[in-house]
């Protein structure tokens, strides 16, 4: 069963704007991760946030986690055309290493 839901399903913005993607999940997690997928390729890990962390930064990426609301968001600042891809949140269950993915957000950045 899918444990993660993402919104929006698709997002189209202009280069230079910020992009925000949201993820909600149903069960307790050990950590939450975000991955990126270029069309027709495998996924690439972007950032991991542990269940006891609230915010994390990596370059132009900012991730927040609210375990009380079982939600996370990924913010990409100053987006570029090269950021065009699908973005997935992934939840790792507590007590295990099973990783479950959300359905993804397709981001299109117009030059």
């Amino acid at each position: 069963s899918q444990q993660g839901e993402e919104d929006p399903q698709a997002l189209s913005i202009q280069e230079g704007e910020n992009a925000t993607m949201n993820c909600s999940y149903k069960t307790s997690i050990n950590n939450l991760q975000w991955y990126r997928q270029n069309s027709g390729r495998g996924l690439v890990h972007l950032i991991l946030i542990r269940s006891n962390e609230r915010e994390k930064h990596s370059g132009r990426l900012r991730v927040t986690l609210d375990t009380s609301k079982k939600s996370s968001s990924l913010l990409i600042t100053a987006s570029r055309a090269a950021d065009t891809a699908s973005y997935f949140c992934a939840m790792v269950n507590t007590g295990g290493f099973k990783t479950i993915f959300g359905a993804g957000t397709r981001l299109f950045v117009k030059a």
Partner: protein
Amino acid sequence: DVKVTQSSRYLVKRTGEKVFLECVQDMDHENMFWYRQDPGLGLRLIYFSYDVKMKEKGDIPEGYSVSREKKERFSLILESASTNQTSMYLCASSLWARGQRDSGANVLTFGAGSRLTVL
């Protein structure tokens, strides 16, 4: 860099055929995973393995089996392919050992994917 290699990028098979999808990783990772990806459904976990000869069912194991005879290789088997198994199949591996408390190790490295079409 960790590399996960999937043997075939594109396959076309007929209904009822037996299909093998091979995945090899070169960084001594303990854990390996098979997902399928379908539009609107994201990635769904089929099977995973945390050690040689060990396997556990994911969320959608029906119609699939797996084999892990060597640490670096994890095979997905479709005993009798059906049209509803047409999909993109993604293999991944990770370092997190069973019982290890450091969640930072459990980052998945994916292969490029195998797109299977069953006619």
